[in-house]
């Protein structure tokens, strides 16, 4: 039977743009350019490689996000994924990690899966917890933060580089995997891929398709609340000197003045 791979991808504000908050203190997703989170490109890449190594596999990309999140799905489809699912609902605005994991888990179950592959963290929220939460909800092993991954004979194996040690991990499918940016460069979509993506199916689901009540998600359903945001004050302008042979000594003088030496 075919190996069913679901890749979770997030549409995020461009980190090199001017990111800010909306009036309700949620991340402003309207006034800024968005894109497929770069860290999720690594998840798509590993999914495609696993699919290429399997006899028969199907890669579905899944996103939970606003209308524009379709752009993220298109990008993943043009990289080579087979089909896409977009969970979109006005009531989802302001959903936190706990709520997002509920929507993702229900959608993954409805889609059917053997392996879920996620990125290491979203580039906007940077929590790095959604894959663990999805695994907890699905009741399947989490094999997360892998810098190397392979799937063979119903088993996923990988390497997780932690602070204290590098670990080899192993779990039976079905499982939830997440991969880091050390897992291997993500491919660029080819012209052929971009053309093919236009014809690939994108399904749209809303909360009622997933039997989720509006109160369970969104800003009102959130388990956490942002009470205040403040822009970090700009750092006061420092002293900049041009090295004319004494740059190292001048720097030492500054460090001594600050009591670092």
């Amino acid at each position, binding site marked *: 039977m075919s190996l069913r791979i679901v890749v979770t991808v997030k549409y995020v504000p461009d980190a090199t743009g001017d990111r800010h908050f909306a009036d309700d203190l949620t991340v402003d997703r309207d006034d800024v350019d968005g894109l497929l989170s770069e860290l999720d490109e690594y998840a798509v890449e590993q999914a495609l490689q696993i699919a290429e190594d399997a006899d028969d596999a199907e890669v579905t990309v899944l996103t939970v996000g606003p209308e524009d999140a379709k752009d993220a799905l298109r990008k993943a489809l043009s990289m080579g994924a087979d089909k896409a699912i977009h969970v979109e609902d006005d009531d989802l605005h302001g959903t936190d990690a706990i709520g997002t994991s509920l929507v993702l888990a229900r959608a993954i179950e409805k889609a059917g899966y053997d392996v879920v592959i996620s990125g290491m963290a979203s580039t906007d929220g940077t929590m790095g917890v959604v894959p663990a939460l999805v695994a907890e909800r699905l009741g399947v092993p989490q094999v997360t933060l892998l810098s190397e991954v392979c799937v063979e004979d119903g088993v996923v194996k990988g390497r997780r580089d932690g602070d204290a040690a590098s670990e080899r991990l*192993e779990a039976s499918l079905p499982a939830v995997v997440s991969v880091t940016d050390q897992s291997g460069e993500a491919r660029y979509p080819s012209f052929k891929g971009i053309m093919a993506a236009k014809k690939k199916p994108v399904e749209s689901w809303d909360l009622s398709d997933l039997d989720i009540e509006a109160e369970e998600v969104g800003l009102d359903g959130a388990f956490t609340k942002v009470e205040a945001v403040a822009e970090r004050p700009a750092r006061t302008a420092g002293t900049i000197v041009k090295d004319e042979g004494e740059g190292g000594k001048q720097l030492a003088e500054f460090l001594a003045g600050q009591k670092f030496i």
Partner: protein
Amino acid sequence: MAEVLVYVDHVDGAVRKPTLELLTLARRIGEPVAVALGNGAADTAATLAEHGAVKVLTHDASEYADYLVVPKVDALQAAHEAVSPAAVLVPSSAEGKEIAARLALRIGSGIITDAVDLEAGDEGPVATQSVFAASFTTKSRVVKGTPVITVKPNSAAVEAAPAAGAVEALSVSFSEQATGTKVTGRTPRESTGRPELTEAAIVVSGGRGVNGAENFSIIEALADSLGAAVGASRAAVDAGWYPHTNQVGQTGKSVSPQLYIANGISGAIQHRAGMQTSKTIVAVNKDAEAPIFELVDFGVVGDLFDVVPQLTEEIKTRKG
């Protein structure tokens, strides 16, 4: 007074510094009750007591080392049931965040990750976070269930605050999921003898400008003259010049030392994300237009191969 659970990060009984910082923060909210798991758990008690733990709940089983994350979640959940705390604090490591998230889901609570400060509030603890590559600061609260909060290293000072630190055995029964992900091999990191990157008071980093693995010895020599940790930009790591464990930035470590010295680093947003909250920032870069200069307290526009060795020599001379 309400109790606050503190998850202990330790290596064979040696408590890591971020856990001691958590005890400082926990005391602002209530009485710290520490949870130490795995090999050497009971050996943590003396240090934890010295820093304010009124109780240390311990449990050792081979599952903690042999399987990923879930056994620790099972134990923390057992501790939560035993204590009914006002909050649960966990160090913000990759693993810490995963443990905290799964615990929060199980106990019907919200989770806040990567707090850089924590205060008591009328409606429960208020966490400060630094977001969007540290360009904004937010204050947040968990509004449902027992607040579960992970806290970044260097968020508070370690303080001595002697307390009873009575050791109690925690009783844990592992869930069916506990043995789902097997750890089949483990290669411990080799110690460099330098301070831990996230805990260091001074970090000296090198980027693409260092131009080669062999040249990192210049960066290391400066670091050693200051007793500092060594960091690297992603460009230097991707080029294979320095290990990924030393990467500073969005997909590496975030550091917040007293002093950060960036050498041959341009200061891309993803690098800034990991160092922008450092107290004092210094840079050496030959391009006067490099964005890193927007952050610095002191910058030298020049060739790092001239400036850095001269700086190292001068520091050594001054230190005698």
